[in-house]
């Protein structure tokens, strides 16, 4: 995965990027639905806004799970990069920890859709 001369920092931040994308998308989707009067709408029999938010949440959780799992495997598997170069253990650990934190934040920000009416 490492490109020569490329800093490992983006890999560590991958979880946060997924979290930010999820946040922006559900915020925008909810706002548009409220502004366009689609809040009570249904899609394939499901309530539109909750279905959309939960779908995006499942996708985001899947993405952070992949990021977290790969970091976990690298921690377990001795950490040698493809070119035989050692990746600092700390950065891999950080990737994993940030993925977990992002998963928690994604769950927290999806929760309101189940508990509060959409455009109250």
């Amino acid at each position, binding site marked *: 995965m490492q490109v020569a001369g490329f800093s490992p920092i983006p890999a560590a931040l991958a979880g946060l990027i997924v979290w930010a994308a999820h946040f922006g998308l559900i915020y925008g989707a909810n706002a548009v639905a409220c502004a366009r009067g689609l809040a009570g709408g249904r899609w394939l029999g499901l309530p539109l806004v909750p279905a959309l938010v939960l779908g995006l949440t499942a996708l985001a959780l899947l993405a952070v799970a992949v990021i977290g799992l790969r970091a976990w495997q690298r921690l377990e598997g001795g950490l040698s990069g493809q070119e035989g170069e050692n990746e600092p253990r700390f950065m891999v650990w950080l990737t994993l920890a940030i993925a977990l934190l992002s998963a*928690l934040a994604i769950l*927290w920000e999806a*929760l*309101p859709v189940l*508990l*509060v*009416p959409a455009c*109250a």
Partner: protein
Amino acid sequence: MHHSVLSPMGPEAARIAELSWLLFLGGAAIFLLVMLLLALALGGGPGVRRRLGARRAILAGGVAFPVLVLSALLVHTLGVAAALGLGEPAPLRIEVTGRQYWWEVRYPDREVVTANEIHIPVGRAVELLVDSGDVIHSFWVPSLHGKIDMIPGRVNRRRFSLDRPGVLRGQCAEFCGTQHALMAFFVVAEEEAEFERWLERLRAPVAKPEEPFLAQGWQAFGQAGCGACHAVRGTPWAGRSGPDLTLLGGRLSLAAGTLDNHLATLAGWIAGPQDIKPGNRMPAFNTVLDGPELRAVAAWLESLR
């Protein structure tokens, strides 16, 4: 007078007050716990310090504990927010429009308009609809409910009710211009019968007074052009860019909570509103009205109650 989140006057405010206490006491308890652990870490024996520094203790206290506490709080808070959104059908509707720097209040089902004071019968479900006539304001009566933003072009709604009679103070809670701080109002919670009597008086057209001094005030009010901005029910004056003045004499305050309401403050306001509340939208009349006219206008307005 009630003007505090900790002095709730209705069920919605009571739930918000409970939440405030939960956060305040919970935060205090956790703070004390952390200070206790800090003291142990600094002054405890080697065994205690080893256990406090162990990886397991750090994961439990630094990760698991905050995640659990914050998740529980989030679910609880969202539950409170959801419960606050519900209400009985067919409530009393009250519309409030924020303006620089006062509040227009309408009871659309009763066809009355007033300003800077909202009367509410106790025990009745109320639906409040707020918007703005100019910039963003925020409607906040701490003993009634949370802040409700007033946004031009958008109507925000809240349901609430009040348990017992009393006077509640409200305040604009979003900076809206130079006189934002002097943009307050009062909520008068009263028994249903009293509320209906108030509505009756508000609905009755104001007739030209018989008494010569008050009649002179009526005359001067018209000649000075007050009616271009102010309405008085039943008269030819129907301006909407200033507060409705029907029943002005019965209000608790003048100029959105700025002054106590009596003859002297009223005459002072009409003569020099820019000295009292600089930058507000009412021009001074000290050069338009002479002394006797000013006293007569004030006396007539004060007699409307």
